[in-house]
Protein backbone atom coordinates (compact mmCIF):
# COMPACT_ATOMS: atom_id res chain seq x y z
CA UNK A 1 0.00 0.00 0.00
CA UNK A 2 1.84 3.12 -1.17
CA UNK A 3 0.50 6.62 -1.07
CA UNK A 4 2.22 9.09 -3.34
CA UNK A 5 2.71 11.69 -0.67
CA UNK A 6 3.85 9.56 2.20
CA UNK A 7 6.37 6.78 2.38
CA UNK A 8 5.13 3.60 4.01
CA UNK A 9 5.31 3.73 7.77
CA UNK A 10 8.46 2.52 9.36
CA UNK A 11 7.19 0.83 12.48
CA UNK A 12 5.08 -2.12 11.38
CA UNK A 13 2.55 -1.92 8.62
CA UNK A 14 -0.38 -0.33 10.31
CA UNK A 15 -3.73 1.20 9.67
CA UNK A 16 -3.36 4.67 8.27
CA UNK A 17 -3.64 7.17 11.10
CA UNK A 18 -5.53 9.68 9.05
CA UNK A 19 -2.79 12.24 9.43
CA UNK A 20 -2.03 15.09 7.06
CA UNK A 21 0.61 13.93 4.57
CA UNK A 22 4.20 14.70 5.43
CA UNK A 23 6.35 15.82 2.54
CA UNK A 24 8.96 13.24 1.61
CA UNK A 25 11.76 15.76 1.36
CA UNK A 26 14.73 15.48 -0.95
CA UNK A 27 16.61 12.91 1.06
CA UNK A 28 19.76 14.97 1.36
CA UNK A 29 19.72 15.58 5.09
CA UNK A 30 22.67 14.21 7.01
CA UNK A 31 23.85 13.18 10.43
CA UNK A 32 27.38 12.74 11.76
CA UNK A 33 29.09 9.49 10.82
CA UNK A 34 30.00 8.77 14.48
CA UNK A 35 26.29 8.78 15.32
CA UNK A 36 25.68 6.09 12.72
CA UNK A 37 28.79 4.17 13.72
CA UNK A 38 27.74 4.10 17.38
CA UNK A 39 24.21 3.06 16.46
CA UNK A 40 25.50 0.29 14.21
CA UNK A 41 27.87 -0.85 16.91
CA UNK A 42 24.95 -1.12 19.36
CA UNK A 43 23.06 -3.12 16.79
CA UNK A 44 25.97 -5.53 16.42
CA UNK A 45 26.28 -5.90 20.19
CA UNK A 46 22.55 -6.40 20.59
CA UNK A 47 22.47 -9.23 18.06
CA UNK A 48 25.76 -10.66 19.25
CA UNK A 49 24.27 -11.30 22.68
CA UNK A 50 21.43 -13.18 21.02
CA UNK A 51 23.39 -15.12 18.41
CA UNK A 52 25.02 -18.49 18.84
CA UNK A 53 27.75 -17.84 16.33
CA UNK A 54 29.12 -15.41 13.76
CA UNK A 55 26.83 -16.70 10.98
CA UNK A 56 23.74 -16.10 13.06
CA UNK A 57 24.99 -12.62 13.84
CA UNK A 58 25.57 -11.92 10.15
CA UNK A 59 22.08 -13.18 9.30
CA UNK A 60 20.62 -10.82 11.91
CA UNK A 61 22.55 -7.94 10.36
CA UNK A 62 21.31 -8.99 6.92
CA UNK A 63 17.73 -8.94 8.16
CA UNK A 64 18.22 -5.46 9.60
CA UNK A 65 19.75 -4.36 6.29
CA UNK A 66 16.77 -5.82 4.42
CA UNK A 67 14.43 -3.72 6.54
CA UNK A 68 16.42 -0.63 5.62
CA UNK A 69 16.73 -1.57 1.93
CA UNK A 70 13.05 -2.21 1.44
CA UNK A 71 12.11 1.22 2.79
CA UNK A 72 15.01 3.04 1.21
CA UNK A 73 13.96 1.63 -2.16
CA UNK A 74 10.53 3.17 -1.77
CA UNK A 75 11.85 6.65 -1.09
CA UNK A 76 14.66 6.49 -3.66
CA UNK A 77 12.47 5.26 -6.48
CA UNK A 78 9.80 7.80 -5.66
CA UNK A 79 12.31 10.61 -5.86
CA UNK A 80 13.97 9.39 -9.03
CA UNK A 81 12.65 11.80 -11.66
CA UNK A 82 14.20 9.93 -14.59
CA UNK A 83 12.07 6.88 -14.07
CA UNK A 84 9.01 9.02 -13.43
CA UNK A 85 8.47 7.19 -10.16
CA UNK A 86 7.94 4.01 -12.11
CA UNK A 87 9.41 0.81 -10.87
CA UNK A 88 11.92 -1.12 -12.91
CA UNK A 89 10.41 -4.35 -14.17
CA UNK A 90 13.50 -5.66 -15.95
CA UNK A 91 16.50 -7.02 -14.08
CA UNK A 92 19.44 -5.16 -15.58
CA UNK A 93 17.91 -1.67 -15.30
CA UNK A 94 16.98 -2.46 -11.71
CA UNK A 95 20.54 -3.54 -10.91
CA UNK A 96 21.87 -0.38 -12.52
CA UNK A 97 19.38 1.60 -10.45
CA UNK A 98 20.69 -0.06 -7.31
CA UNK A 99 24.32 0.48 -8.31
CA UNK A 100 23.78 4.18 -8.98
CA UNK A 101 20.72 5.77 -7.37
CA UNK A 102 20.30 3.55 -4.34
CA UNK A 103 23.99 3.47 -3.55
CA UNK A 104 24.37 7.21 -4.06
CA UNK A 105 21.43 8.13 -1.90
CA UNK A 106 22.26 5.80 0.99
CA UNK A 107 26.04 5.64 0.84
CA UNK A 108 27.01 8.87 -0.86
CA UNK A 109 28.61 7.36 -3.95
CA UNK A 110 27.83 4.88 -6.71
CA UNK A 111 28.98 1.28 -6.37
CA UNK A 112 32.15 0.60 -8.29
CA UNK A 113 31.05 -2.19 -10.58
CA UNK A 114 28.27 -4.52 -11.59
CA UNK A 115 29.19 -7.80 -13.23
CA UNK A 116 27.36 -10.82 -14.55
CA UNK A 117 28.66 -14.09 -13.22
CA UNK A 118 26.14 -16.54 -14.60
CA UNK A 119 22.63 -16.42 -15.95
CA UNK A 120 21.34 -16.19 -12.40
CA UNK A 121 24.24 -14.57 -10.57
CA UNK A 122 25.32 -10.96 -10.51
CA UNK A 123 28.03 -9.21 -8.50
CA UNK A 124 28.02 -5.67 -7.18
CA UNK A 125 31.33 -4.33 -5.86
CA UNK A 126 32.17 -1.45 -3.58
CA UNK A 127 35.78 -0.51 -2.88
CA UNK A 128 34.86 1.68 0.05
CA UNK A 129 31.76 0.20 1.61
CA UNK A 130 30.34 2.83 3.92
CA UNK A 131 29.26 0.44 6.60
CA UNK A 132 32.70 -1.11 6.80
CA UNK A 133 34.44 2.24 6.61
CA UNK A 134 33.00 3.57 9.83
CA UNK A 135 32.79 0.36 11.79
CA UNK A 136 35.77 -1.23 13.43
CA UNK A 137 35.21 -4.83 14.31
CA UNK A 138 36.33 -5.74 17.84
CA UNK A 139 38.83 -8.58 18.05
CA UNK A 140 36.42 -11.00 19.64
CA UNK A 141 34.26 -10.82 16.53
CA UNK A 142 37.18 -11.77 14.31
CA UNK A 143 35.64 -12.74 11.01
CA UNK A 144 32.46 -10.71 11.18
CA UNK A 145 31.74 -9.02 7.89
CA UNK A 146 29.53 -6.01 8.45
CA UNK A 147 29.00 -6.12 4.72
CA UNK A 148 26.26 -8.55 5.72
CA UNK A 149 24.17 -5.49 6.49
CA UNK A 150 24.82 -4.18 2.96
CA UNK A 151 23.95 -7.58 1.49
CA UNK A 152 20.69 -7.46 3.39
CA UNK A 153 20.11 -3.94 2.13
CA UNK A 154 20.33 -5.22 -1.46
CA UNK A 155 18.19 -8.24 -0.66
CA UNK A 156 15.49 -5.94 0.74
CA UNK A 157 15.51 -3.83 -2.42
CA UNK A 158 15.36 -6.85 -4.71
CA UNK A 159 12.46 -8.39 -2.83
CA UNK A 160 10.55 -5.10 -2.75
CA UNK A 161 11.10 -4.75 -6.49
CA UNK A 162 9.81 -8.24 -7.22
CA UNK A 163 13.16 -9.91 -7.96
CA UNK A 164 13.75 -12.25 -5.03
CA UNK A 165 17.32 -13.44 -4.63
CA UNK A 166 19.78 -14.86 -2.17
CA UNK A 167 22.31 -12.16 -1.42
CA UNK A 168 25.61 -12.48 0.39
CA UNK A 169 28.67 -10.32 0.99
CA UNK A 170 32.31 -11.25 0.92
CA UNK A 171 35.60 -9.41 0.85
CA UNK A 172 37.96 -9.53 -2.10
CA UNK A 173 41.52 -10.59 -1.47
CA UNK A 174 43.67 -7.65 -0.41
CA UNK A 175 44.86 -5.77 -3.46
CA UNK A 176 47.46 -3.12 -2.60
CA UNK A 177 47.11 -1.56 -6.04
CA UNK A 178 43.38 -0.91 -5.75
CA UNK A 179 42.52 -0.88 -2.07
CA UNK A 180 41.96 2.49 -0.43
CA UNK A 181 43.65 2.76 2.97
CA UNK A 182 44.05 -1.00 3.00
CA UNK A 183 40.28 -1.53 2.97
CA UNK A 184 39.33 -4.58 0.95
CA UNK A 185 36.62 -4.42 -1.67
CA UNK A 186 33.19 -5.58 -0.52
CA UNK A 187 31.42 -7.80 -3.01
CA UNK A 188 27.67 -8.35 -2.98
CA UNK A 189 26.71 -11.57 -4.73
CA UNK A 190 23.10 -11.91 -5.88
CA UNK A 191 21.72 -15.30 -6.90
CA UNK A 192 18.25 -14.90 -8.32
CA UNK A 193 15.36 -17.30 -7.83
CA UNK A 194 14.45 -19.49 -10.78
CA UNK A 195 11.16 -17.62 -11.30
CA UNK A 196 13.04 -14.35 -11.87
CA UNK A 197 15.32 -15.83 -14.51
CA UNK A 198 12.41 -17.53 -16.28
CA UNK A 199 10.41 -14.33 -16.31
CA UNK A 200 13.37 -12.39 -17.70
CA UNK A 201 13.85 -14.85 -20.55
CA UNK A 202 10.09 -14.80 -21.35
CA UNK A 203 10.24 -11.01 -21.56
CA UNK A 204 13.15 -11.36 -23.97
Amino acid at each position, binding site marked *: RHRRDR*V*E*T*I*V*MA*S*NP*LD*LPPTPLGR*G*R*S*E*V*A*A*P*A*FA*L*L*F*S*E*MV*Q*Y*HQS*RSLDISALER*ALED*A*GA*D*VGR*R*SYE*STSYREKASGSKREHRLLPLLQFIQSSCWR*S*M*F*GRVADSLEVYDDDEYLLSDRDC*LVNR*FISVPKDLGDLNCGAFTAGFVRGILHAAGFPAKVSAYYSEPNPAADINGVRTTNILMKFEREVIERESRLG
Partner: protein
Amino acid sequence: DDGCVAAARTRTRTNDMPPRAPYTKPEVLGAACWQTMDKVNAELFALTHGALVRQIVKDCEDDIDAANAKLDAMGYSMGTRMIEEYLSRTLTSSATPGAGKCGTFEEAAEAVAKIGLRMFLNVGARCVDWDEERTKCTIEMDGNPLAMFVELPEKYGNLGYCNALCGAIRGALEMVRFRVTCTMASDPLKTPHVPDALFAIRMELVEIVPEEYPFDE
Protein backbone atom coordinates in the same frame (compact mmCIF):
# COMPACT_ATOMS: atom_id res chain seq x y z
CA ASP B 1 27.30 39.63 15.76
CA ASP B 2 30.85 39.01 16.78
CA GLY B 3 30.16 35.73 18.49
CA CYS B 4 32.57 34.16 16.04
CA VAL B 5 36.07 33.34 17.08
CA ALA B 6 37.54 36.81 16.77
CA ALA B 7 41.13 37.89 16.93
CA ALA B 8 42.16 38.23 20.56
CA ARG B 9 41.63 41.78 21.63
CA THR B 10 44.60 43.46 23.20
CA ARG B 11 43.92 45.29 26.35
CA THR B 12 46.05 46.75 29.03
CA ARG B 13 46.27 44.46 31.93
CA THR B 14 48.30 43.97 35.02
CA ASN B 15 50.45 40.92 35.59
CA ASP B 16 48.01 39.24 37.92
CA MET B 17 45.06 39.21 35.47
CA PRO B 18 44.63 36.00 33.47
CA PRO B 19 44.69 36.46 29.66
CA ARG B 20 41.19 36.79 28.32
CA ALA B 21 40.40 34.45 25.45
CA PRO B 22 37.82 35.35 22.81
CA TYR B 23 34.41 33.89 23.65
CA THR B 24 32.87 31.40 21.26
CA LYS B 25 29.11 31.21 21.42
CA PRO B 26 27.92 27.62 21.80
CA GLU B 27 25.86 27.77 18.60
CA VAL B 28 28.91 28.85 16.66
CA LEU B 29 31.02 26.10 18.17
CA GLY B 30 28.28 23.60 17.42
CA ALA B 31 28.13 24.65 13.79
CA ALA B 32 31.93 24.58 13.54
CA CYS B 33 32.06 21.06 14.95
CA TRP B 34 29.31 19.88 12.58
CA GLN B 35 31.37 21.17 9.65
CA THR B 36 34.27 18.95 10.62
CA MET B 37 32.29 15.73 11.03
CA ASP B 38 32.19 12.99 8.43
CA LYS B 39 28.58 12.67 7.39
CA VAL B 40 26.16 9.95 6.40
CA ASN B 41 22.71 10.08 4.91
CA ALA B 42 20.15 10.81 7.63
CA GLU B 43 17.69 8.31 6.15
CA LEU B 44 20.24 5.53 6.48
CA PHE B 45 20.61 6.48 10.14
CA ALA B 46 16.87 6.78 10.72
CA LEU B 47 16.00 3.53 8.97
CA THR B 48 18.78 1.61 10.75
CA HIS B 49 17.55 2.91 14.09
CA GLY B 50 14.02 1.93 13.10
CA ALA B 51 15.10 -1.59 12.21
CA LEU B 52 16.74 -1.90 15.61
CA VAL B 53 13.69 -0.55 17.46
CA ARG B 54 11.49 -3.02 15.61
CA GLN B 55 13.77 -5.90 16.49
CA ILE B 56 13.83 -4.92 20.16
CA VAL B 57 10.05 -4.61 20.32
CA LYS B 58 9.70 -8.00 18.67
CA ASP B 59 12.25 -9.64 20.97
CA CYS B 60 10.54 -8.12 24.01
CA GLU B 61 7.37 -9.78 22.73
CA ASP B 62 5.52 -6.53 22.78
CA ASP B 63 6.39 -5.78 26.42
CA ILE B 64 6.66 -2.06 25.76
CA ASP B 65 8.10 -1.18 29.16
CA ALA B 66 10.94 -3.63 28.61
CA ALA B 67 11.52 -2.27 25.11
CA ASN B 68 11.59 1.29 26.43
CA ALA B 69 14.15 0.35 29.08
CA LYS B 70 16.27 -1.45 26.51
CA LEU B 71 16.26 1.54 24.18
CA ASP B 72 17.26 3.88 26.99
CA ALA B 73 20.09 1.54 28.04
CA MET B 74 21.30 1.31 24.47
CA GLY B 75 21.31 5.07 24.18
CA TYR B 76 23.19 5.34 27.45
CA SER B 77 25.87 3.04 26.10
CA MET B 78 26.17 5.15 22.97
CA GLY B 79 26.33 8.35 25.00
CA THR B 80 29.22 7.15 27.13
CA ARG B 81 31.24 6.75 23.95
CA MET B 82 29.97 9.88 22.24
CA ILE B 83 31.55 12.10 24.85
CA GLU B 84 35.06 11.39 23.58
CA GLU B 85 34.12 12.64 20.14
CA TYR B 86 32.49 15.69 21.70
CA LEU B 87 35.50 16.55 23.83
CA SER B 88 38.03 16.15 21.07
CA ARG B 89 35.99 18.06 18.48
CA THR B 90 35.18 20.98 20.75
CA LEU B 91 38.82 21.17 21.69
CA THR B 92 40.03 21.37 18.12
CA SER B 93 37.18 23.43 16.72
CA SER B 94 37.59 26.48 18.84
CA ALA B 95 40.39 28.88 19.57
CA THR B 96 38.91 29.39 23.00
CA PRO B 97 40.56 27.07 25.50
CA GLY B 98 37.89 25.32 27.49
CA ALA B 99 35.09 26.05 25.01
CA GLY B 100 32.42 23.43 25.29
CA LYS B 101 33.54 22.44 28.75
CA CYS B 102 30.78 22.03 31.27
CA GLY B 103 31.55 23.53 34.66
CA THR B 104 27.97 23.99 35.76
CA PHE B 105 24.81 22.09 34.95
CA GLU B 106 23.63 25.16 33.08
CA GLU B 107 26.70 25.04 30.85
CA ALA B 108 26.22 21.33 30.35
CA ALA B 109 22.61 21.78 29.30
CA GLU B 110 23.55 24.55 26.89
CA ALA B 111 26.31 22.35 25.49
CA VAL B 112 23.89 19.49 24.85
CA ALA B 113 21.38 21.76 23.18
CA LYS B 114 23.66 24.02 21.19
CA ILE B 115 26.71 21.88 20.51
CA GLY B 116 25.96 18.19 21.00
CA LEU B 117 22.70 17.95 19.10
CA ARG B 118 24.12 20.07 16.31
CA MET B 119 27.34 18.17 15.86
CA PHE B 120 25.84 14.68 15.97
CA LEU B 121 22.36 15.11 14.53
CA ASN B 122 22.58 18.52 12.84
CA VAL B 123 19.64 19.64 14.89
CA GLY B 124 19.15 23.11 16.34
CA ALA B 125 17.91 23.20 19.91
CA ARG B 126 17.61 25.48 22.91
CA CYS B 127 17.15 25.27 26.68
CA VAL B 128 13.85 26.62 27.97
CA ASP B 129 11.68 26.36 31.08
CA TRP B 130 14.48 26.63 33.61
CA ASP B 131 13.59 26.23 37.28
CA GLU B 132 14.82 28.79 39.83
CA GLU B 133 17.72 26.71 41.08
CA ARG B 134 18.91 26.15 37.51
CA THR B 135 18.88 22.37 37.96
CA LYS B 136 16.06 21.55 35.55
CA CYS B 137 15.32 22.58 31.99
CA THR B 138 13.69 21.50 28.79
CA ILE B 139 15.69 21.08 25.60
CA GLU B 140 13.46 21.96 22.69
CA MET B 141 14.56 20.53 19.31
CA ASP B 142 13.94 21.86 15.82
CA GLY B 143 13.51 18.43 14.31
CA ASN B 144 14.66 14.90 15.00
CA PRO B 145 16.23 12.70 12.34
CA LEU B 146 15.36 9.60 14.36
CA ALA B 147 11.69 10.25 13.74
CA MET B 148 11.91 10.33 9.97
CA PHE B 149 9.13 8.27 8.37
CA VAL B 150 7.85 7.11 11.75
CA GLU B 151 4.25 6.55 12.74
CA LEU B 152 3.43 4.64 15.88
CA PRO B 153 0.56 2.20 15.50
CA GLU B 154 -2.00 2.33 18.30
CA LYS B 155 -0.77 -0.78 20.02
CA TYR B 156 2.67 0.81 20.38
CA GLY B 157 1.32 4.14 21.56
CA ASN B 158 3.48 3.99 24.68
CA LEU B 159 6.69 3.11 22.88
CA GLY B 160 9.48 5.49 23.76
CA TYR B 161 10.77 5.50 20.20
CA CYS B 162 13.26 8.28 20.98
CA ASN B 163 14.43 6.80 24.27
CA ALA B 164 17.87 6.12 22.87
CA LEU B 165 18.32 9.87 22.47
CA CYS B 166 17.44 10.49 26.12
CA GLY B 167 19.76 7.68 27.15
CA ALA B 168 22.58 9.05 25.05
CA ILE B 169 22.38 12.47 26.67
CA ARG B 170 22.28 10.87 30.09
CA GLY B 171 25.26 8.64 29.32
CA ALA B 172 27.36 11.43 27.87
CA LEU B 173 26.71 13.75 30.81
CA GLU B 174 27.45 11.04 33.32
CA MET B 175 30.93 10.77 31.81
CA VAL B 176 31.50 14.40 32.73
CA ARG B 177 30.09 13.82 36.18
CA PHE B 178 26.58 15.15 35.77
CA ARG B 179 24.05 12.56 36.84
CA VAL B 180 20.75 13.53 35.24
CA THR B 181 17.35 12.20 34.32
CA CYS B 182 16.19 12.67 30.73
CA THR B 183 12.66 12.09 29.59
CA MET B 184 10.69 13.16 26.55
CA ALA B 185 8.62 16.14 27.67
CA SER B 186 7.06 16.36 24.24
CA ASP B 187 7.02 13.54 21.68
CA PRO B 188 5.17 14.29 18.45
CA LEU B 189 5.28 10.57 17.64
CA LYS B 190 2.91 10.03 20.57
CA THR B 191 0.78 13.07 19.79
CA PRO B 192 0.62 13.02 16.00
CA HIS B 193 -2.57 15.03 15.82
CA VAL B 194 -1.08 18.02 17.64
CA PRO B 195 0.00 20.45 14.92
CA ASP B 196 3.52 21.87 15.00
CA ALA B 197 4.54 19.88 18.06
CA LEU B 198 8.27 19.82 18.75
CA PHE B 199 10.47 17.15 20.25
CA ALA B 200 11.53 18.26 23.71
CA ILE B 201 13.58 16.57 26.41
CA ARG B 202 13.13 17.37 30.08
CA MET B 203 16.49 17.18 31.82
CA GLU B 204 16.91 17.30 35.60
CA LEU B 205 20.09 17.25 37.60
CA VAL B 206 20.20 14.51 40.21
CA GLU B 207 23.69 15.15 41.46
CA ILE B 208 27.14 16.23 40.44
CA VAL B 209 29.26 13.16 41.02
CA PRO B 210 32.27 14.13 43.08
CA GLU B 211 35.69 13.36 41.70
CA GLU B 212 37.08 10.19 43.10
CA TYR B 213 40.66 10.32 44.16
CA PRO B 214 42.52 7.06 43.77
CA PHE B 215 44.63 7.58 46.84
CA ASP B 216 43.28 7.32 50.31
CA GLU B 217 44.94 10.17 52.20
